[in-house]
């Protein structure tokens, strides 16, 4: 394993049939009047059927932008996909003509937004909105779409679904709105569901309900799910694998258990240490010092080095590769092994 550790590898092994969804070396930049912000700098991840991948990172780390690029709903301009590929069942979505791209949206890959209130059209009843896709894409009649909408609302456990079909988004509570959003996303029975911080706008108690619902739906409908979040607590129960993002890169990629047991990147370690614990009373909460980098001026070498307790000169000079640590684990840190084995801090 120690020989393994220093060998840089481009991507994890591909199964014979190919991955369901694969993002390959994606680069996205935002061209603004103040300059070019390099928001995504070579992100690669993959998703297999039935799997849940959590993408973790703080605000501005590029996790949502990656998802929007996959979905094809980035605003271009200012966003610009400078290189990379997004393969769905082996087909590159980025080279697909817009008309065919639209066929993929909603039907193959669907997305849940963070703030359901703004993601629902305020002037239409929710039943109409859930049914709209069905009527447009599947050519369902109004009555059929209505019936199916009720089924979908039942599926996401909205009580009295048939009665609430005609209600407008503002008449729902936050949790119920998020359920409506989920029902909309599920309308076309997508194979991949991207949940972009689905619980951020919700109360803590409701957060748990929504996460449970998503986990159940993923299992029952046999979807694959990408869960974007900055909440480590949310991830632990639901995800199979975790990709930690920092400054537009995936800095660590591992299965949930090994990542929680022994993080192999100082950033992940910092995140895990800053979770408040019940047994830690009175003391000051651990934090990661400093701020995320300005994406127009990403630090040289490893972008995390100004905030990193392990930083050496090499981190300032050399951009670290993804080091493979076995079991498909990777870490973009020069000292990945040391960090992983350093249980003390």
């Amino acid at each position: 394993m120690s020989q393994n550790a220093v060998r840089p590898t481009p991507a994890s092994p591909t199964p014979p049939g190919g991955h369901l969804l694969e993002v390959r070396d994606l680069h996205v930049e935002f061209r603004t009047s103040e300059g070019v912000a390099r928001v995504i700098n070579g992100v690669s991840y993959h998703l297999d059927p039935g799997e849940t991948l959590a993408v973790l990172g703080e605000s501005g780390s590029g996790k949502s932008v990656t998802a929007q690029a996959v979905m094809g709903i980035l605003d271009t301009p200012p966003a610009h996909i400078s290189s990379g590929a997004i393969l769905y069942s082996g087909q590159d979505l980025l080279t697909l003509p817009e008309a065919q791209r639209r066929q993929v949206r909603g039907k193959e890959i669907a997305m849940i937004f963070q703030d359901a209130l703004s993601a629902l059209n305020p002037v239409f009843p929710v039943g109409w909105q859930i049914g709209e896709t069905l009527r447009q894409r599947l050519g369902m009649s109004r009555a059929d779409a209505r019936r199916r909408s009720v089924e979908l609302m039942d599926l996401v456990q909205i009580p009295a679904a048939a009665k609430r079909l005609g209600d407008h988004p503002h008449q729902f509570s936050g949790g119920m709105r998020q359920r409506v959003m989920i029902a909309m996303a599920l309308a076309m029975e997508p194979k991949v569901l991207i949940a972009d911080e689905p619980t951020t706008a919700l109360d803590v108690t409701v957060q748990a309900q929504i996460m449970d619902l998503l986990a159940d739906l993923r299992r029952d409908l046999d979807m694959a799910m990408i869960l974007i979040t900055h909440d480590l607590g949310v991830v632990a129960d639901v995800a199979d694998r975790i990709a930690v993002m920092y400054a537009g890169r995936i800095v660590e990629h591992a299965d949930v258990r090994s990542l929680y047991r022994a993080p192999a990147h100082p950033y992940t370690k910092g995140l895990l240490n800053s979770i408040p614990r019940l047994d830690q009373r009175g003391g000051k909460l651990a934090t990661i010092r400093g701020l995320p980098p300005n994406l127009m001026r990403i630090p040289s070498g490893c972008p995390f080095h100004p905030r990193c307790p392990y930083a050496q000169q090499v981190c300032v000079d050399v951009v670290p590769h993804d080091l493979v640590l076995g079991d498909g684990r990777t870490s973009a840190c020069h000292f990945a092994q040391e960090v992983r084995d350093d249980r003390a801090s």
Partner: protein
Amino acid sequence: MSDFETVAASENQAARRGPSGEPGTPNQVGQPRKPRSLTGDAWRDLRRKPIFWISLILVLLVTAMAAVPGLFTSNNPTDCALSRQHAAPSGGAIFGYDFQGCDTYARAVYGARASLLVGALSALLTGAIALLVGMLAGYFGGWVDAVLSRVIDVVLGIPLLLAAIVLLKRVGSDSATVRVGAVIFVLAVLGWTTAARVVRSSVITAREQDYVAAARMLGAGDGRIMWRHILPNALAPAIVVLTIALGSFIAAEATLSFLGIGLQEPTISWGIDINNGRVHMRESATPLVVPSAFLALTVLAFIMLGDAIRDAFDPKLR
């Protein structure tokens, strides 16, 4: 105490109103309760507002006047006799007679048709142009927006009255229909810019909303997003601007007619009558005051109605 009773009573009423809305029958597919539509909500809001009722009654009154003036006066507005010049009120002529000896009130009633027609049709045409231009500019942005916005700037820079005078002078025909059409056309062609800017800015706001991204995420195309998702959300400010514009178009028609380049006699319009009344204001003020009051009330009614409807239809204000 009495407050509580009122609330309880209204709750009872609400319960009685929704027959299939009983709890305990949650998931009956195909038998949903009548949905609370946006229009329904807006209506509940509106009917409590006195301003709405006052302006609605005025608007309906003027509309009725325009449609069937005979209901409001039995006198013929073109039945004029110089012997009655500035005569005091008598018979049906409740406001007396003007310089030409015509019934002032009857002329004001019959004048509603031309004014309202010009106002309403100009507002509709303006709305069509403004929605098209504003939607394209706001939705597509980039060079489309740049070109259309400059066009708006240019048209906005043309003084309305000056351009209207130049354009209307070129209308050779004296036929009433042609002149009405020309006035409508000129007002709309010169007056759509403000509304287009409003539409553009509200389209830009709506375009950035998550529900547009959500629609796109579900595979909706540009046309569908514009028509179904952006338009309804961007419409409210446009409706207000247009109702207000309707009022000002009526005023502009009066101005043009007053200047002698809008409608022309024998068409009866408030503008023409205001112009005639002005000349002989010192002998008798009523032939000036009556059409002016009709004009002012009509304009005010449309503006108030627009405002009330805007408030009721804007879900963001709930």
